[in-house]
């Protein structure tokens, strides 16, 4: 404007024009501000009026033209400034959208939207809050708020920032760098708000239902429209817009200018609506993302399960193959073994009178018997067991076995204790198979106490629907590495074992629908507990079918 006083020396277009200059630049708006009322222009006009009528008309026209140009310019300046504001809003919206699209976290998404609404560098509401539908409590609940609860608080906060109020970028930094995003008192107040869906007259519920924007009109009382917002929205003016996509209603966004008291303009409302739409899309994304993540977790879990099952199947298939091979080989070995053994026995009967022969033949026979026993165990293990279920007395079976082993137990210096919970313990089971299991377990207990002697304790009791018998020794206990493989076929810690005793026992008990449990402590001994299902008294023998169903 300084040029206005020294226009003649500043290259005024009129002077230039009068001087006959041809390349006069008329594009800069500045020229017109001081040309109006310029003495040179008056001179030009006078010069024109003194001459011809046409010139006068031209002079008036020019005058009017200047008036028009001037008013257009003012409009242009207005439009430009409003465009600039729109551009700022758009770029902010763009920024928020950009960040929103990248977030899969609801809290962060909320913070981004609220920061966008309240950040100082765009339409900057003083504070904003979001309420979301909560289907569990059937209410609209306050979820998050950004802004200050009181004017003093706002002033204090804004003092910290260069521009008076935090810009979007400054606020953004806070969102990404702090563990707890929402710490404002205002937020905690918003958090308390709960508006039941039944409160149909409540203004926020109306916004949610009608999907129409609400602006507080002068003279309206917030307490009447929405009592819950009495201290949270500016009675001088606040706006509430719905957050929704085509598919889903999420909730309501409210904003006001309680510090600056800037009136809420139409433009502000429209921008807020745009923001709310973006927020809705973001929330939908977050929801979808979370669903996807849950599905992914589920899939991963299923995948793990499948892989586990597959490796289990592969292992079983391999074991089955080994089993088949073992059966074939064992059978091939067993037949000649029988022949060898039978002939040895015959020789023993014929020539056994001579001590020397007898001893040698007995060695052969002993080894053959051992091989025969192992091969029988292998053949037994690989075949399917058909149980012949009858009612039998567990105590009887145990006593019978102890009688057979009596001499050996004495030799090993093993004392025997029996604790039966009843005089007779009747079970529904395949007596021969159970005998095999008990025999095997006692045999193992004896092996564990072979060197030092000890106490063998056999007890029975009932537990829920199971009849339980326990065989406990005071032997060496089982080594850590052996414990895991205890029931694995062909695994043995004994020099002479087939490694099938416990796995056969387990199979038999499994087939009965029961289970077998081992507890052991190094140096103190081991305890094997066998659980057989179907606790029945003798007068009510259970059908095998019942056992089967418990089995499944």
């Amino acid at each position, binding site marked *: 404007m300084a040029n206005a006083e020294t226009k003649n020396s500043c290259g005024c277009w009129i002077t230039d024009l009068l001087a006959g200059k041809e390349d006069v630049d008329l594009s800069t708006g500045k020229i017109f501000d001081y040309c109006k009322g310029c003495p040179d222009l008056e001179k030009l006009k006078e010069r024109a009026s003194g001459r011809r009528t046409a010139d006068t008309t031209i002079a008036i026209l020019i005058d009017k033209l200047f008036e028009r140009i001037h008013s257009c310019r003012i409009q242009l300046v207005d439009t430009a400034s409003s465009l600039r504001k729109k551009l700022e809003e758009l770029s902010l919206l763009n920024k928020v959208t950009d960040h929103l699209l990248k977030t899969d976290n609801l809290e962060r998404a909320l913070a981004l939207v609220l920061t966008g609404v309240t950040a100082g560098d765009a339409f900057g509401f003083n504070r904003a809050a979001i309420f979301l539908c909560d289907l569990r409590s059937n209410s609209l609940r306050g979820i998050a708020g950004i802004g200050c609860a009181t004017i003093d608080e706002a002033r204090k906060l804004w003092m910290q920032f260069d521009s008076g109020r935090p810009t979007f970028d400054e606020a953004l930094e806070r969102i990404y760098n702090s563990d707890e995003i929402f710490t404002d008192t205002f937020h905690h107040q918003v958090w308390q708000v709960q508006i039941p869906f039944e409160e149909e007259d409540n203004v926020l519920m109306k916004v949610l239902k009608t999907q129409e924007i609400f602006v507080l009109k002068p003279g309206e009382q917030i307490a009447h429209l929405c009592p819950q917002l009495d201290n949270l929205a500016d009675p001088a003016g606040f706006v509430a817009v719905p957050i929704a996509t085509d598919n889903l209603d999420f909730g309501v966004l409210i904003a006001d200018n309680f510090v600056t008291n800037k009136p809420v303009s139409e433009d502000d409302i429209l921008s807020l609506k745009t923001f709310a739409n973006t927020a809705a899309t973001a929330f939908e994304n977050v929801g979808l993302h979370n669903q996807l993540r849950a599905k992914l977790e589920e899939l991963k879990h299923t995948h793990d399960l499948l892989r586990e099952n597959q490796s289990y199947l592969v292992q079983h298939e391999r074991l089955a193959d080994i089993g088949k091979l073992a059966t074939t080989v064992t059978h091939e070995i067993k037949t000649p073994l*029988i*022949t060898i053994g*039978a002939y040895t026995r*015959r020789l023993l009967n014929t020539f056994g009178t001579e001590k020397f022969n007898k001893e040698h033949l007995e060695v052969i*026979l002993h080894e*053959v018997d051992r091989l025969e026993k192992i091969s029988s165990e292998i*053949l037994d293990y690989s075949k399917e067991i*058909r149980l012949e279920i009858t009612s039998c007395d567990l105590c009887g079976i145990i006593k019978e076995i102890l009688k057979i082993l009596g001499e050996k137990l004495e030799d090993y210096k093993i004392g025997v204790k029996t604790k039966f919970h009843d005089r007779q313990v009747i079970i529904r089971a395949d007596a021969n198979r159970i005998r095999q299991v008990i025999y095997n377990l006692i045999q193992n207990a004896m092996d564990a106490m072979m060197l030092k002697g000890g106490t063998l304790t056999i007890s029975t009791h009932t537990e829920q629907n199971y009849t339980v018998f326990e065989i406990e020794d005071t032997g060496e206990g089982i080594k850590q590495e052996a414990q895991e493989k205890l029931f694995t076929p062909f695994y043995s810690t004994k020099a002479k074992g087939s490694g099938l005793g416990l796995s056969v026992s387990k199979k038999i008990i499994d087939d009965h629908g029961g289970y077998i449990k081992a507890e052991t402590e190094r140096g103190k001994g081991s305890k094997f507990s066998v659980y057989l299902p179907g606790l029945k008294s003798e007068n009510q023998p259970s059908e095998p079918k019942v056992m089967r169903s418990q089995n499944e």
Partner: protein
Amino acid sequence: MSRILIVEDEPHLLELYIDELKEEGHEVEGYANGEEGLKRLDEFAPEVVVLDIKLENSAGGLEILKEVKSRNKNTRVILNSAYSTYKNDFTTWIADAYIVKSSDLVELKTKIKELGDSSPLM
């Protein structure tokens, strides 16, 4: 003392069975395959038949069992097998005894004596 017919495809084992059972005082005939054994069945008319189940180059013991029992249900049949698996095959139920083959012949001898002594064919 009984007439005993044995079908066993292990020649040495068969020989041993024959010897041992003869020593027990039985009248014994042994064959390595089922068809030969069946040919002798009517004429020899054994009280007890001992059958191996798995027979090479021959009808299996269970087939022979059915044939023996259909000709004369009073003929006692003992199945003598290395497997205990066959116990679950229903055909084995028509046999009078099932023995898991062992180098110890005591069980076999006892069963033969028991079935022979109670035979209605004697």
